[in-house]
């Protein structure tokens, strides 16, 4: 029976996910142990609001470690010589990188989710569930929930874009026999700068100046209540999302093309 596209993609995805099983378990353990350690510190004297700083710091460290893992998920194939197996398989670069992207995203969702969950539970414990409810209520009351959702969606696709830049840079680096890591590093930096310029240019060209920026403006009204209005318009959101998706798609196909046409062993 001819292997289906879904089966081959799932096999690659499963392999990519299993190859980071040990690292993922280590990160998961670090999340729990890190939170446990700082909880102990708070219980023995540190101010309780510190938990917010601790949970956010752990979350960003986890994200950073996974992001660095993006580079190694590709380069590991070379260091283990498994690239000989991967390149001899009857699959295109598109499938190879789609499986790697899905594996990294799975890691981000599971480990990021675990970090947020543990952080939220501990924050509720130390600060009281009322504060969390108040914050949520604040967002709902001031119609910031929509802004928050749009921001999260942009962040999600922004992360996909940055992962694809990492894949692209690694492939450009691997296309050269010498100074591969140096080329990867500079390609990553310059690609991000280039994407930033394209993004800025398109936003300037396509959006009216008044709607241009993501801004949350705070002021006090006559009742003394905090009033928040958002500058993240739906138009801005849709345009930004379209730009991210277009650039990501371009990067994805470019990366797959470099893999198919330029990579040699």
């Amino acid at each position: 029976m001819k292997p289906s596209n879904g089966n081959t993609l799932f096999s690659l995805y499963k392999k990519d996910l299993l190859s980071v099983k040990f690292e993922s378990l280590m990160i998961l353990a670090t999340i729990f142990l890190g939170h446990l350690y700082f909880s102990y510190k708070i219980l023995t004297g540190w101010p309780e609001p510190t938990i917010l700083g601790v949970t956010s710091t752990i979350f960003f460290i986890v994200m950073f470690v996974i992001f660095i893992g993006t580079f190694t998920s590709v380069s590991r194939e070379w260091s283990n010589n498994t690239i000989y197996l991967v390149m001899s398989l009857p699959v295109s670069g598109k499938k190879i990188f789609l499986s790697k992207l899905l594996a990294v995203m799975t890691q981000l969702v599971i480990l990021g989710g675990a970090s947020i969950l543990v952080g939220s539970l501990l924050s509720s414990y130390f600060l009281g569930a009322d504060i969390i409810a108040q914050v949520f209520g604040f967002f709902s009351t001031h119609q910031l929930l929509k802004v928050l959702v749009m921001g999260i969606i942009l962040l999600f696709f922004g992360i996909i874009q940055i992962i694809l830049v990492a894949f692209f840079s690694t492939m450009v680096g691997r296309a050269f026999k010498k100074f591969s890591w140096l080329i990867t590093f500079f390609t990553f930096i310059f690609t991000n700068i280039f994407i930033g310029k394209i993004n800025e240019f398109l936003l300037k060209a396509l959006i009216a100046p008044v709607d241009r920026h993501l801004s949350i403006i705070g002021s006090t009204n006559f009742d003394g209540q905090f009033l928040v209005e958002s500058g993240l318009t739906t138009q801005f959101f849709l345009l930004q999302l379209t730009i991210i998706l277009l650039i990501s798609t371009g990067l994805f196909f470019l990366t797959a093309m470099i893999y198919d046409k330029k990579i040699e062993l």
Partner: protein
Amino acid sequence: MIELKGVTKTFGSTIALDNVSINIPEGKIIGILGPNGSGKSTLLKMLVGLNKPNHGNIFINGQQIGVQTKSFISYLPEIDYLYPWMTIQQAADFVKSFYEDWDENKYKELVEFLELQPSMVIKKVSKGMRAKAKLLLSFSRNAKLILLDEPLSGIDILTRDKIIETIIRDYRAGDQSILITTHEVREVEGILDEVIFIRRGQIALEGNVEELRYQRQASLVEIMKEVYTHETI
């Protein structure tokens, strides 16, 4: 089946293959022989798409190298290329999901024949066992074209015999082609139908093994010595 037309491959200033044109017939066991650095492995890598020619074209069954040709090629490189954290069973499950020609019965028979355990973790077994595991994955398929790059390199004499037995065990003459690169000529001499000697990236000599032996009244080892000792044949 395999056609190379004016293929040149360079790595910097080193010429690995120099304007090679050759037709490799279908359904035979063909030895690609030569000393280290003569271009044997590069030739196999190009057939499976791991290297691209600087000039010239390669066709397999009339098709250019790509996803389609890879689907009927079974490639066994000299180095350990399997995921070290996988068990033999996991590696087999991974490989079989890509190929239509995977033969589960053949796989089970070969596991027994090669005295392997599917639960063995690849990084934890000896070099000989890893060589057998690679062979198991290559020969559990009914691939039209099998490329073996130095399958006997660094392997003890008993395992070598087992590897050669595996190569000829299920070989389907006329239907399947096997290309073996090696400089261990003595071990493979008995199984080769055709031979191609490569010297400094060029074809030094090619032909039917029996005919060459008859014409030169010499063994393949002696012919090889002759080819690589003198500049002209």
